């Protein structure tokens, strides 16, 4: 909470800086006969001072907060008695945890030895010292910035140009966050995956057909060596996604065709938003529906027909996921169908084709690349969809093509492996990151191909 208060202080100083800069510039202008002698409007001198009051201070604060724990830990460790300091790193980490817990007033796991008590006191002292130092430094830097700008204000200072350059640089930094996000995803997932592959061979992960990530806690435990073959997961994902696409593509495509080529404007204006409601419903709601309504329904239906249906069948999850994707397919195909030039339709109609013939023989082939792109995008969304399958699909990895059986998916496994207690060196946790990497790679390739196809297709008729 302290650093958030410091943020507030910096913000106040920025406002003060603005006022000071503005006043100073007006005073300078008065000395040199009138504000028209200033290079920029007075407000820009104010902004300039405010930026100098804010940016370096914020930067310093961020660095300070980031390194706080590291620095204090180093200092405390350096002051620990010899017996504790020379412990192996893992045990030292535990000791440090105890010290930290004591310092923050949490429950400590072990008994308190005087040495640890001493270290905890030391920790608290250092932390207070550190935060006071941060406070003073940040405030000083901020005030110094204001003073410096104020001293340099003169009619010839090109305040507007400087402020604008800073603002543009800030916007540039903002826009590179998108790149940073992608890099962050790639590196974080890759790093943990590499650690995983150090423990489990890549070939087993890619070609293995058995998935049971339970690791033996004791050496003599039976049958829990842990096997990490991802094929059943991808097969399950594929099965559910294909069921979803079998629902979504015909319904989505046909409704897009009907809405764009048959429906009256009024019908379209009424129906389209109603269908798009499906896109706005959170996935957790679909999951609830799939688990509590669809799955029992299918199970009862199957029992009446004399078939054996698992209570977490792939069919239930797939059907509901298909419903979720309908508006996605329909709005993407609506776009591409509308992009087909009217002249093509007119030409076909003039030759005496019926409307459905025009659509099937002219519009559809012309729009095909776009539609394929849209279906690919929808497929990648189905593969990455999480909540529906977490709630309605099973946990056990079956390698089967029977939609009435229970299968599990990549996303389900990521969620189950990463919720609950985790240690970051067990292959179980790391496996989730390897799965995440595979998922990211597959969807990325599909998205790139799909987006490129759609874009090329659009250019063709533009």
């Amino acid at each position, binding site marked *: *909470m302290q650093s*958030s208060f410091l943020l507030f202080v910096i913000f106040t100083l920025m406002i003060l800086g603005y006022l000071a800069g503005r006043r100073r510039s007006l005073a300078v202008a008065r000395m040199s006969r009138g504000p028209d002698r200033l290079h920029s409007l007075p407000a820009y001198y104010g902004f300039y001072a405010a930026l100098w009051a804010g940016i370096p201070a914020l930067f310093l604060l961020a660095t300070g907060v980031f390194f706080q*724990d590291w620095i204090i830990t180093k200092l405390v460790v350096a002051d620990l008695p010899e017996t504790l300091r020379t412990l192996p790193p893992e045990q030292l980490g535990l000791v440090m945890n105890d010290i930290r817990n004591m310092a923050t007033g949490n429950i400590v796991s072990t008994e308190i030895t005087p040495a640890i008590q001493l270290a905890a006191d030391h920790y608290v002292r250092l932390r207070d010292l550190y935060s006071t130092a941060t406070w003073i430094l940040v405030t000083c830097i901020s005030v110094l910035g204001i003073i410096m700008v104020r001293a340099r204000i003169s009619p010839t200072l090109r305040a507007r140009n400087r402020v*604008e350059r800073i603002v*543009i640089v800030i*916007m*540039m930094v*903002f*826009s590179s966050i*998108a790149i940073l*996000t*992608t890099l*962050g*995803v790639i590196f974080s*997932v890759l*790093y*943990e995956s590499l650690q995983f592959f150090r423990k489990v061979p890549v070939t087993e992960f890619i070609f293995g057909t058995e998935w049971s990530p339970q690791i033996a806690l004791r050496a003599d435990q039976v049958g829990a060596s842990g096997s990490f073959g991802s094929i059943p997961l991808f097969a399950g994902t594929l099965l559910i996604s294909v069921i979803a696409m079998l629902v979504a593509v015909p*319904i989505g*495509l*046909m*409704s897009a065709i*009907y*809405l764009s080529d*048959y429906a009256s404007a009024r019908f379209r204006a009424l129906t389209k938003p*109603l*269908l798009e*409601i*499906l896109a*706005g*419903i*959170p996935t*957790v*709601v679909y*999951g*609830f529906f799939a688990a*509590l309504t669809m799955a029992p329904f299918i199970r009862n239906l199957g029992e009446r027909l004399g078939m054996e249906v698992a209570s977490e069948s792939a069919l239930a999850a797939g059907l509901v996921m298909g419903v979720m994707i309908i508006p996605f397919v329909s709005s993407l195909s609506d776009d591409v169908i509308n992009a087909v030039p009217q002249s093509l339709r007119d030409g076909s109609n003039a030759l005496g084709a*019926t*409307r*459905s013939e025009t659509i*099937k023989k002219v519009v559809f082939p012309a729009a095909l690349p776009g539609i394929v792109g849209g279906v690919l*995008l929808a497929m*990648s969304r189905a*593969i*990455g969809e*999480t909540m529906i399958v*977490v*709630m309605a699909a099973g946990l056990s990895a079956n390698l089967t093509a029977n939609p009435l059986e229970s299968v599990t998916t990549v*996303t389900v496994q*990521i*969620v189950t492996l*990463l*919720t609950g207690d985790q240690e970051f060196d067990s292959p179980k946790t790391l496996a*989730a*990151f390897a799965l*995440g990497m595979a998922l990211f790679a597959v*969807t*990325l390739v599909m*998205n*790139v191909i799909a*987006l490129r196809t759609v874009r090329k297709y659009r250019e063709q008729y533009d």
Partner: protein
Amino acid sequence: MTSPANSTVDIVRAGLPKRYARERRFRLMGMLAIGLGLVFVAILFLDIFSKGYTAFQQTYVRIQVHYDGSVIDPAGTENPDTLAFADYMALLKQSLREVFPEVTDRRAKRDLYQLVSPGAGQVLRDRVLANPEIVGTTEEVWVLANDDIDMLVKGHIDRDLPESNRRLDDRSLAWFDRLVDQDAIEKRFNITFFSSGDSRQPEQAGIAGALMGSFYTLLLTLLFSFPLAVGSAIFLEEFAPKNKWTDLIEININNLAAVPSIIFGLLGLAVFINFFGVPRSTPLVGALVLTLMTLPTIIIASRSALKSVPPSIREAAMGIGASPLQTQFHHVLPLAMPGMLTGTIIGMAQALGETAPLLMIGMIAFIVDVPQGFTDPATVLPVQIFLWADSPERAFVERTSAAIMVLLAFLITMNLTAVLLRKRFERRW
């Protein structure tokens, strides 16, 4: 006139009925597709509504309570701490025994106490703390009934089932019927649902904690993502040189918009929590993840809003001597703002309904307290729905549905606002 010239027409004519039939079939298929889509919407809403509307009412039991001083405050100190930690459940148990004096053996007594919620003593405690004078007096209090009783009242427990398949045995049903005869059972508006946090007891569980968590998370997400998105949209659309680098950024943003949301959860776990040490389960880390997730949506919308502002506006501003940045901030941005806000609202609606990435960063924890700030452990509404959907108690089904109704109400309001905003301020140049 049976010249061969007619033969083409004849062939065409002969084929016409078939072709028209095919046309009709095709058209019918289109209508069927739309019909199916609409039916799905209707089923979904009806299903949720029919499951959830009962949760807005809750069963209460009227009990005559004697605020026994020897139980609440044996020493007679009137010390608030003593009053706060007294065993109020004992008072309720005492009253229940008085209503059913024939119940004597231990197991029967335990079943008897199950008529009221285990947290029902809370009401008595609040009343005593608010007014310590009432110790020693007797009054009638309405307390929360247990979830099984609640389900029975709402008709979710079938009395005709054999006793062993029922949540309530015959004896409990008899007690319940006697309470009904005494007019001691009543359904009231369920305030608990809106005022309390999560609980293991369905009758005590509420969405207040999740709502506050969602509020804090969404507020931070908005604060982070709006300036970031607008800044990058302006830079990319108006200032960036068209080169390989900006092409890359563009492709990248489009791709990020299609990356599965769970991947952002992995990123949050690995980067924000493990590397930067942001506290787990807090609105802060949730907002960081959701910001990265919604950023592409808002950037794409903002860029198209900027694109729709005609160049003449920019040229006019430049013509009278505005600098490029002044042109943007004084003239282009105000005109593009409605479009940007629409995109932002849609992005926020997405963030409000998102669940999967938040599971990765620990917002799935069981948290009873209503969060008070950005760094308190919290959960959000969709995650609460997920947690309740997993609970085995029948009473949680209606609560889950009710929470979904609340969530959908928020989402529909947000989307409607976006649509109205677009309608109201949309400009054709």
